[in-house]
């Protein structure tokens, strides 16, 4: 185990080092190496910028590259051209000509027309920020200001209510979010506290929400591994004890626990193992109390999970 931990740390360190080296590498298109072109103005290559010609406003005509990079003057380049991508941005260069390219694309501290970088959403907020500036978290600015159509679902509570929208239209999410990391940030708890999905010090106040399941905890946390692990460490989980005494707020808990279990099975599982319930609810031994509800259909379950049936019943 420790060796694998070291290996993990090694891979992380290696990755960080390699990425640090990569960050010093040149860009895909090194604008700064083409500084001489800057004197002609950005629109000499990005010809559609001010006309609003969507087919030309971002991309450069490949023939402009091959004019010099033809294998004789300079090394040959066979760039096929830019493929326009679907975007939710309303932004159009044609409606922002007075700003000048450097206002949004300039690199702070660098000089020259070709010292440029992609504009980020934060730049928009300088003018459209309504006094607030955080692109994702502030929530004061309507998303419709800059984006087509994300807003009907992107209310402030969208963080907890986005499941259907994401499932019904995943390709739209990826217009703004990196799918490879965005979902994982929250859906593989314990998560980075920076994302603040839960309020601060949620540990001391999570109990009520675990019972009421405003969203399903198991979407991100394994009941067996995550919940029970911590509860066991804190002495809350049963851990094989059969001596009772924890549920002291309900008289005759033993007689009433069935209602609680059927209403809040998720929470039961966060402390109790299957074997603890089987002490009474098994057809093989113990009190042989039938746990199945009146609508239980054994044939459907049996077809798909003989292994689970065999936990309590012989003949499987």
């Amino acid at each position: 185990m420790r060796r694998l931990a070291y290996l993990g740390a090694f891979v992380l360190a290696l990755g960080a080092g390699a990425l640090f080296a990569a960050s010093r590498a040149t860009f895909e298109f090194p604008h700064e190496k083409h500084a001489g072109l800057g004197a002609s103005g950005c629109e000499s290559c990005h010809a559609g910028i001010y006309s609003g010609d969507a087919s030309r406003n971002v991309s450069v005509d490949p023939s402009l590259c091959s004019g010099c990079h033809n294998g004789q003057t300079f090394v040959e380049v066979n760039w096929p051209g830019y493929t326009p991508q679907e975007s939710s941005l309303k932004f159009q260069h044609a409606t922002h000509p007075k700003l000048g390219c450097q206002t949004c694309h300039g690199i702070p501290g660098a000089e020259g027309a070709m010292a440029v970088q992609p504009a980020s959403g934060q730049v928009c907020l300088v003018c459209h920020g309504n006094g607030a500036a955080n692109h994702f978290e502030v929530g004061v600015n309507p998303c419709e200001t800059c984006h087509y159509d994300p807003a009907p679902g992107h209310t402030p509570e969208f963080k907890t209510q986005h499941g259907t929208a994401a499932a019904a239209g995943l390709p739209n999410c990826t217009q703004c979010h990196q799918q490879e990391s965005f979902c994982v940030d929250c859906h593989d708890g314990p998560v980075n506290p920076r994302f603040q999905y839960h309020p601060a010090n949620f540990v001391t106040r999570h109990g009520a929400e675990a019972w009421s399941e405003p969203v399903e905890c198991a979407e991100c946390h394994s009941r067996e591994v995550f919940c029970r692990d911590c509860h066991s460490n804190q002495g809350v989980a049963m851990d094989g004890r059969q001596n009772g005494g924890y549920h002291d707020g309900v008289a005759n808990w033993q007689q009433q626990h069935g209602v609680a279990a059927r209403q809040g099975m998720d929470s039961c599982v966060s402390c109790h193992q299957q074997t603890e319930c089987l002490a009474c609810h098994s057809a093989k031994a113990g009190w042989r109390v039938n746990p199945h509800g009146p609508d239980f259909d054994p044939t459907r379950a049996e077809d798909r999970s003989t292994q689970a049936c065999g936990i309590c019943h012989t003949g499987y």
Partner: protein
Amino acid sequence: MTVHRRPFLILVAGALLGLPGSGRAQGVRGDVTLNWGWLQLRPFVVDSVPEDGVAGSGLQRQLTDGTTVTCIEGDFCRWYEDNGERQDITPFTQDLRFAGWTGVQGLSFHGQMRTRFGSDDLWPRTDQNFDLLTGYLSLTRSAYRINAGRMYRASGLGYYNFDGASVMFRGLDWMWIEAYGGWSLARGVNAPRDGKLYTESDLLATDRRGLLFGGELGFKGGKVFSGSATYQRELRTDRLALYSERAAVDLRALIGGWAFDGAAAYDFAYDEINDARVRVTTPQILGIRFSAQARRYVPFFDYWTIWSAFSPVGFGEGRLSGTWTSRSIPLLVEAGGAYRKYEETNAGPATTTILRDGWRGFGRVYWTPDRWYVDARYRFEDGFGGSRYGGDLIFGRYLDQRSISYVAVRGTGTETLYEFRDGERYVTGAAVEGAYDIPNADLTLDASLGFYRIEDKNRPQATDWTEGRATVGLRWRFNTGGTR
């Protein structure tokens, strides 16, 4: 330990080693994040006295100080209380995320890794030292996408991850179709189903890995509606049984500023709709928008467990919320609530005192004059199992134009009641928190320090105490493809 398959390590290491060269051609972006935390907890212990020393009779009695105890005749009377000793817990995680482009048109690699250390396993999963959350190659063209490696599926069935491959065809404007399959991983753990994390957490944990297969059909009609239908089956490698067989449908329509959402997830083995919801969201008029939702929820459990055979029941819930975003001042107001009612359990006596319904409500006011901000939040959960009432009040100031650097003071108060346990708990506290984005370095530091007073009422043997908490984080972002 999550990663049992050496090829993935080789894949990731190879991808990383190749980064400088490939990054030169195209670009790599990502971040490295270090997070350290400190918190204090007081574990519960069971205490007992001989049964014949406690007055009264029956299963549940009271000690002279009022402590409720559970007695077994001729044995002991027992109760649970914290033992007065604090545990200091110090989880530490390191994350590396990256996405890079290889120089081959459409071919990219993606990964996220995490290492965990600290506190001798007191914090969940700290014994899962190395975790490869994702690590896959992707070949993306306008008409299709092929992924191979460790990845996940986020669909109407929730979040499932697996080691395998997926193929998506999206050559038509109005639809896409995707098939996927591979070795399944336990949800929320990134470990095989027969892995150590599971076998240590449950005596009846499965001893077989799982194979996951599924498909999704998605469709959309312009900007008006979109939807998807997903079917997924997960089976044991010995094919004796399934771990799950589920399907989901998710639909969304946007008509004239109105949004209509509908979703349902179905469990084939127990013939149960686990989570179904219909929601309507109004257009924003004068900065005001409302959302109404009806939901039915029944938990889903993997078939290797017995839990679904215990016939858990669901609840039906109605939910209404609204937001107001001012156009003239930087102010956001949000409020909402929900009522839920559980279905008949057919368990226990008719005289049972356990609640069959519950309420929740929430509200928020967020005001950002200039770079200052005030964030007041309140939430209550009232009902079955447990209740809590309380909120946070935060005063802060952003220190830079991008609102990444900030300092803030947070006050908090919460009252908690557990229906199944005597007493109430009050938690009040204060914390300072902040972040600093180091200019031109792509580095962000953040930290917080707080103390929380914990007081238990109506529990005679409980003692009040103050819990300390702190976090320190560092995030370094990189992007080598800046002019793409």
